[in-house]
């Protein structure tokens, strides 16, 4: 194989530049003094201050955090049990079940969103935190389930059998042997689910109801009206939060190997 030419390096740099330029612009202009996002007139934190005093925004942030934590906890339980259960059954329908388990990631989000909206309406569920929570588990569970399943596949079944042979009950063997072994996958899957939940716009739009709004929904409604420096500041904070989650996630998955 020949090494890359200088042109190749230039091309790569250009594409990365285009990928990261818009994001860099958002960060830079969040610290801009002037309201117009074209010229940097001076360093200022005033948009961040304005953001902190924005009640509705803070409320949306709290809603998002509650929702993110709840949906990742609930999904961690359901997803982990599902992965462990799937690896133990030998039913004829196993193939179909495995197909269903990744279905939510294959169906376009918009279809998932409207399907859930119609379903909740039919059940007469009040739209709000509960519907958002159920809606978010739909795409959070598959992530956790996949991570745990991959981890289980690489696990030596003899470990658990040994525990059983030594007299541990099935519950004890699961709790003391299997669970600690799959824990890294549960945690990394949950982090991924948390990030997805904090980011979700499409499904939330359909199931959030008129009163409650999450941070992404709030941003979305504001964006439809145009660009403001306050949004730049908010996006920069979100970006920092995402990067922290991402770093923690990659540290955990690296350790796993």
């Amino acid at each position, binding site marked *: 194989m020949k090494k890359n030419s200088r042109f190749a390096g230039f091309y790569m740099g250009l594409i990365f530049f285009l990928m990261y330029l818009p994001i860099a612009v958002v960060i830079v202009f969040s610290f801009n003094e002037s309201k117009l996002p074209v010229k940097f007139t001076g360093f200022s934190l005033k948009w961040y201050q304005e953001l902190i005093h924005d009640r509705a925004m803070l409320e949306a942030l709290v809603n998002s955090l509650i929702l993110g934590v709840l949906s990742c906890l609930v999904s961690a339980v359901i997803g982990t049990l599902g992965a462990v259960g799937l690896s133990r059954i030998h039913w004829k329908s196993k193939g179909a079940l495995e197909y269903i388990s990744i279905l939510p990631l294959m169906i376009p989000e918009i279809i998932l969103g409207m*399907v859930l909206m119609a379903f909740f309406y039919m059940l007469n569920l009040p739209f709000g935190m509960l519907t958002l929570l159920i809606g978010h588990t739909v795409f959070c569970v598959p992530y956790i389930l996949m991570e745990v399943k991959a981890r289980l596949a690489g696990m030596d079944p003899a470990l658990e059998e040994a525990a059983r042979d030594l007299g541990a009950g099935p519950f004890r063997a699961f709790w003391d042997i299997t669970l600690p072994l799959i824990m890294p996958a549960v945690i990394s899957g949950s982090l991924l689910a948390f990030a997805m939940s904090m980011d979700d716009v499409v499904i939330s739009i359909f199931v959030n109801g008129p009163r409650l709004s999450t941070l992404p929904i709030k941003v979305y409604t504001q964006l*439809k009206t145009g660009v403001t420096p306050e949004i730049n500041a908010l996006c920069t904070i979100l970006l920092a939060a995402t990067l922290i989650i991402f770093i923690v996630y990659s540290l955990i998955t690296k350790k796993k190997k």
Partner: protein
Amino acid sequence: MKQYRNLIKPYLVWAFVVIVIPLILIALYAFTEDGNEVLTFSFTLENFRKFLEATYMSVIFKSFKLGILTTVICLGLGYPLAYIISKCPEKSQSLLILLVTIPEWINMLLRTYAWMNLLSDNGIINHLLGLLGISPVTMMYTDFSVVVGLVCNFMPFMIIPIHTSLSKMDKSFIEAAYDLGANKFQTFTKVIWKLSIPGVLNGIMMVFLLSISTFVIPKLLGGGQYMLIGNLIESQFISVGDWNFGSAISLILAVLILIFMSLMKKMDKDE
């Protein structure tokens, strides 16, 4: 192992309630009349007939056009990048792939919004053009801005699978091609490209599916009046309130996607 079977029960209940039942429900909606009570279904094909009207067909047509355009651009820009990355030393490869994936972790709204900053009428690009003495160009709320947004959002989904199949490739095939006298161009078209086709097909499938079903990006970068299939479905549910018609469109979209996916799978097998 029997004792563990019960573990799966909560998952089964969940999957059945939130995935299987709602999907069946939508199919029912699509084939029934507006304003139906749950228990008195009267079946109709009206929702599908309505779909054949010119206004709706043009939305479908436009969605496919933009979807294909986005996919082609992503392939054209992404393949060389994946190829270049696969030729880098192992260590820098994982770093470069990380650089490709990081934007996917960033909120889609944020990435889309970032382009609004650049492309708007009094945005940065027009400001720079103004400094050069060029009169402002309208870029926001056009097909151009929508395609830019789609390409930037979905490019990693093209690069990653192509890179995976390129880096998995047995390098001795390439050496063999050179040894047998093939030049650079022949080696690429007859060996490298052929071996990377599974990755290319995967990438095409992902990018096309994502770009044909999105509604947030076209809404933000194309403006409120911009209509793709996703926007049509969203408006039927959120603002118009014709759920039966909305369900019918979703069903058609789902069927189109299934057809597309099986075509791709078939091509993959033929290769």
